[in-house]
């Protein structure tokens, strides 16, 4: 590792992973160079219609991140750029970049559904603009690779008819059909006719031995279900949808419910089958005939209007080349290989991977890995944190209180986007005539750098004290313009934005005169409001740079260690008498890596790190305070002051009531069997017949979730058992084999090596019987349809993973959100306020400063827990690296004298900001996100959202309808 480290990181790829990693790094005090080989950022996610399992629009989840991205200053990013050479070592890399000429306008990259503006786009090091080509070098301490993935070329499998028949499309093409749909019908390509019957073919290019794509692509089952449900919802007529699959792999959090609802409530057909051919019908209708074999081996033919191929992921050629150039190890399928128990470290120190290049995965997991890779880089570069960034300084704020409003109105043409419809000069003219408006002008692009300078100059020249910008959506550029006025010495909140693009030129493009009138009215309203708004203060709070980590398992320890290595204090509270958690009972992970030696090393590192304090045999009994300033009391009365909280309290294995567990001593749970394997127990070693039963307690009516890892674990154990005794017969009784991702390799190996897999139906479960001595397992062979009986020596039960035992108790202290099953629900707020969506903050809670990692959030593997623990550390570092934080100015405030202490606000706030103190509500500024729910619901009107009071709005309405009155 280099002695001269550099406090900057190179992020390769501008998809969701690259964006998330960048945001975390910049917030934590590192400079970022981001390179993207295409001309726009957004990646695969911007091509999707909705995102499962919440069904939020993919773009609406991505857009706030893009906005945040556009507003940060300690970053340079380069589109149309690739890495040509990397020299140096961890801590100090010299990376040569090469940029090709740009044909697109980087100021407005139009992703045809949602235009994404990128202020400050494309400044490069030499000062050239992004449109020119050239080579240049950047010096960074770490590199994060998130080049994403590509979809499989479906025409490589000839019998599927892709590129041959117009109505066979890929899933990503179908996303586009959904996005452009009029939401009344789904149109097929050949004749633009409405479709009434659609089929999805799963595992196209995945689990495919012929094309050497053995692995499972993880997301296709879920996206096919989502697309099938969307197709029904977007059609006024009844649409018949069928999904042809081998195993339904809905293993993620809330996925099983999504699957059940699609099947039972929406009526999506699921057909377990093998596809033999897809051909066009002979009648010239361009319909398609699918020939398939069902699970009993019978051949069927069925006609569809359209067929969607659920194509899998593969790394792009350029990503593979990049990997080879960098000299990192790639796996058999050319994905980047990570070193054991790191989740994100490539074979080369200082180079990390996140997202699909490390293996197929969904959006939340990609975001988690991106944060984890940022956390790993921060650990490496902690001694040079903050060396490459400069704190921005501002001129002193002008006191405008008591001044008469002097309003400046700037109206944007947005090139032709607004000006092509709305008569902008007329809007400017009408603005000038409004009360208190002392200046108004138009801009071609208000968001350009030049325009910012002019705005500042006009503020000075005309002593403006309120600024209105009439342009596009405030969601995208509000913060950017607020910066401009702050640089001119005005308080950020003396600002209003009017969206005359979306609300005028876009929606009334065929009625330019009315669009212009509407724009004038909207500006008039805004001017009225501007006269009533005031300067707002952002309340500062100090941040205690210490984390409380609840739970001393792998997740808790990884989290604490990452923070400690970043230079922050961490205090682990463990309820048992030693560190280690569930991992104590696991011999190897799914890649056959030794868990115990890893665990011992981790415990040693934790114990010897001076930044970490450990309290065992204790639990949390009380928590006071808020982000930055928590005070926690433990059960041993110890008081800890800290800034953030990690909840890593794990989960536990279900103790089955079924299959003679507890009645016969040869019936064991997975963990118990694993312990016997580790101990090399003779009864296991000598067993002739071993039966492993899957889904014991999972995917049941009272536990409607998949425990995610049990299929992988049973397959791993089957291979271990086979190694112990090659003569043993091993049976796995399953419902769907969910060996997702590269775990499919072990499944294939197990089948090849003679492990016998027998599928059972949920309404016809295997029977385990005993005569008091021997065990007999009876199951139905699904091909023969007949009972088979196995004299079992050992029966292993894949018992469900249950939520943490202390979850509900702990939650009474934290008041966070739990899922129906009892797992912690990350960021529960799913409203349309433009706040976090589940996909985008997968380790955060809605309450600021509290984070979750590991089994407490849901079933997952050790590697996945490690990724989450590092991601949590990275998110926490964005808070802990600051000495103080500031609230927003737009917050709710309570008029104590009117408060009835009724608890309405405290009950309804999604962010736990209001508390009742001394018989009245108080709203903690740092926790308040300004959503206004409390202000709207307060029965005594005791709460006001600053600059959004009732008076302001009734004035605006009166102004708008003055002529009517």
């Amino acid at each position, binding site marked *: 590792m280099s002695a001269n480290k550099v406090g900057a990181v190179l992020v390769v790829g501008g998809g969701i992973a690259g964006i998330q990693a960048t945001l975390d790094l910049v917030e934590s005090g590192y400079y970022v160079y981001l390179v993207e080989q295409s001309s726009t950022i957004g990646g695969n996610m911007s091509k999707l219609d909705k995102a499962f399992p919440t069904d939020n629009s993919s773009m609406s989840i991505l857009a706030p991140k893009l906005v945040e991205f556009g507003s940060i200053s300690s970053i340079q990013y380069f589109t149309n750029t690739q890495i040509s050479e990397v020299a140096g070592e961890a801590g100090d890399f010299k990376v040569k970049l090469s940029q090709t000429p740009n044909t697109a306008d980087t100021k407005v990259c139009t992703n045809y559904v949602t235009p994404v503006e990128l202020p400050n786009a494309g400044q490069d090091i030499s000062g050239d603009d992004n449109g020119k080509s050239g080579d240049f070098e950047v010096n960074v301490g770490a590199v994060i690779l998130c080049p994403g993935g590509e979809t499989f070329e479906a025409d490589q499998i000839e019998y599927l008819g892709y590129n041959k028949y117009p109505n066979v499309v890929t899933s990503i093409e179908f996303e586009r059909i959904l996005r452009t749909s009029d939401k009344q019908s789904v149109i097929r390509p050949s004749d633009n006719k409405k479709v009434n019957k659609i089929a999805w073919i799963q595992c196209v290019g995945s689990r495919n031995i012929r094309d050497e794509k053995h692995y499972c692509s993880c997301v296709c089952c879920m996206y096919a279900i989502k697309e099938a449900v969307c197709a029904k919802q977007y059609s006024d007529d009844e649409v018949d949808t069928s999904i042809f699959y081998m195993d339904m792999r809905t293993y993620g959090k809330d996925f099983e419910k999504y699957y059940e609802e699609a099947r039972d409530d929406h009526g999506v057909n699921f057909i377990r089958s093998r596809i033999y051919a897809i051909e066009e019908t002979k009648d010239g209708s361009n319909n398609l005939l699918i020939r398939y074999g069902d699970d009993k081996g019978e051949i069927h033919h069925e006609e569809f209007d359209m067929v969607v191929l659920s194509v899998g992921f593969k790394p792009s050629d350029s990503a593979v080349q990049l990997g080879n150039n960098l000299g990192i190890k790639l796996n058999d399928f050319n994905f980047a290989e990570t070193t054991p128990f790191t989740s994100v470290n490539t074979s080369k120190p200082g180079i990390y991977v996140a997202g699909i290049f490390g293996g197929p995965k969904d959006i939340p997991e990609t975001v988690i890995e991106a944060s984890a890779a940022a956390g790993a880089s921060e650990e490496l570069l902690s001694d040079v944190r903050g060396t490459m960034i400069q704190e921005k300084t501002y001129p002193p704020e002008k006191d405008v209180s008591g001044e008469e409003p002097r309003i400046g109105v700037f109206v944007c043409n947005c090139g032709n986007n607004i000006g092509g419809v709305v008569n902008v000069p007329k809007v400017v003219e009408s603005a000038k005539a409004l009360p208190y408006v002392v200046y108004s002008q138009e801009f071609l692009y208000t968001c350009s750098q030049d325009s910012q300078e002019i705005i500042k100059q006009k503020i000075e020249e005309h002593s403006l004290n309120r600024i209105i910008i009439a342009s596009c959506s405030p969601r995208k550029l509000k913060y950017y313009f607020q910066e401009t006025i702050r640089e001119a010495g005005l308080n950020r909140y003396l600002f209003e934005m009017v969206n005359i693009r979306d609300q005028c030129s876009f929606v009334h493009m065929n009625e330019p005169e009315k669009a212009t009138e509407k724009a004038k009215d909207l500006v008039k309203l805004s001017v009225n409001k501007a006269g009533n708004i005031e300067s707002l203060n952002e309340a500062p709070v100090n941040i205690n740079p210490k984390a409380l980590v609840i739970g001393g398992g792998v997740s808790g320890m990884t989290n604490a260690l990452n923070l400690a290595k970043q230079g922050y204090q961490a205090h682990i509270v463990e309820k048992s008498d030693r560190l280690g958690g569930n991992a104590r009972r696991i011999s190897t992970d799914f890649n056959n890596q030794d868990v115990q030696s890893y665990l011992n090393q981790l415990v040693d590192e934790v114990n010897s790190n001076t930044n970490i304090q450990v309290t065992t045999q204790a639990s949390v009994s009380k928590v006071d305070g808020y982000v930055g300033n928590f005070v926690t009391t433990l059960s041993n009365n110890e008081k800890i002051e800290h800034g953030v909280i990690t909840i890593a309290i794990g989960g536990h294995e279900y103790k089955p009531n079924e299959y003679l567990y507890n009645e016969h001593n040869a019936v064991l749970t997975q963990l118990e069997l694993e312990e016997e394997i580790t101990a090399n127990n003779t009864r296991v070693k000598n067993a002739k017949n071993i039966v492993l039963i899957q889904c014991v307690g999972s995917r049941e009516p009272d536990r409607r979730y998949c425990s995610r890892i049990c299929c992988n674990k049973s397959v791993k154990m089957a291979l271990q058992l086979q190694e112990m005794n090659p003569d043993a017969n091993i049976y796995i009784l399953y419902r769907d084999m969910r060996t997702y991702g590269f775990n499919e390799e072990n499944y294939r190996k197990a089948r090849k090596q003679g492990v016998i897999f027998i599928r059972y139906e949920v309404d016809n479960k295997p029977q385990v019987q005993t005569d008091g001595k021997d065990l007999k397992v009876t199951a139905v062979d699904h091909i023969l349809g007949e009972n088979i009986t196995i004299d079992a020596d050992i029966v292993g039960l894949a018992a469900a993973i249950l939520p943490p035992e202390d979850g509900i108790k702990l939650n009474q202290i934290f008041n966070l959100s739990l899922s129906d099953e009892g797992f912690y629900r990350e960021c529960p707020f799913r409203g349309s306020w433009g706040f976090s969506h589940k996909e985008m903050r997968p380790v955060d809670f809605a309450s600021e400063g509290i984070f979750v990692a590991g089994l407490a959030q849901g079933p997952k593997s050790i590697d996945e827990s490690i990724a989450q623990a590092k991601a949590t550390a990275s998110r926490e570092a964005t808070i802990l690296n600051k000495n103080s934080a500031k609230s927003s100015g737009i917050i709710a405030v309570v008029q104590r004298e009117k408060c*009835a202490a*009724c*608890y*309405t606000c405290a009950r309804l706030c999604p962010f736990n900001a209001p508390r009742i103190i001394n018989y009245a509500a108080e709203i903690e500024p740092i926790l308040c996100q300004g959503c206004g729910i409390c202000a709207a619901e*307060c*029965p*005594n*009107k005791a709460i006001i959202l600053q600059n959004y009071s009732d008076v302001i709005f009734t004035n605006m309405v009166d102004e708008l309808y003055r002529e009517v009155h």
Partner: protein
Amino acid sequence: MIVAEQKPIKTIADLIEDSNKVLLVGCSACVAVCLAGGEKETEVLASALRIKRKQEGKPLETVTKMVTRQCDPEYIATLDDSVEDVDTIISLGCGVGVQYLAERFYNKWVIPALDTKFAGGSIEHGQWEERCGLCGDCILHRTGGICPIIRCSKSLLNGPCGGSQDGKCEINKDVPCAWHLIYERMKSLGKLDKLLEIQPPKDWSRSRDGGPRKVTREDVFID
């Protein structure tokens, strides 16, 4: 708290049909907490009445006022200057509040905007349940803190009737049988033997049956 519920707008509108100017008086106590008569509801009701009357071509003028509690004369007195030129006073207080207003403003037409329901508490945001029968002679110490007077549909004193099934009352499967709850609670407290004591007939004269009631604390009087 006293839990109340707003009457339908149409009913209230009918009650003020002949008025041209009304005073709406909200209350910041119980009815604010149960989301029936606080400032928000008062303003919303005033707007609704104005809109309705405007649509009907007979515009209505409204004045809205809040008082801390409509059940204390001093607070009511703060309205003295607001009642002069109104035709009707609409109280968003409980039945007590309406009467206090009617007593103080003897020559004004005072009408209730709420239906006063019961003495109870909140279960969750937006849901309230009855808990106290106001019988004037509390026996909760005998019944495990669960009131059979108001929570048993028959106000039985010595155990459930034959209509108790699976813990539910026969009047409705969503209503728990109070005596079932009492039994379970006493059992978990290890005090089932207390339930064996026979309760004599209750002295209902201490309740409503004895006529209007009054509480007097001579010890706090100041001469």
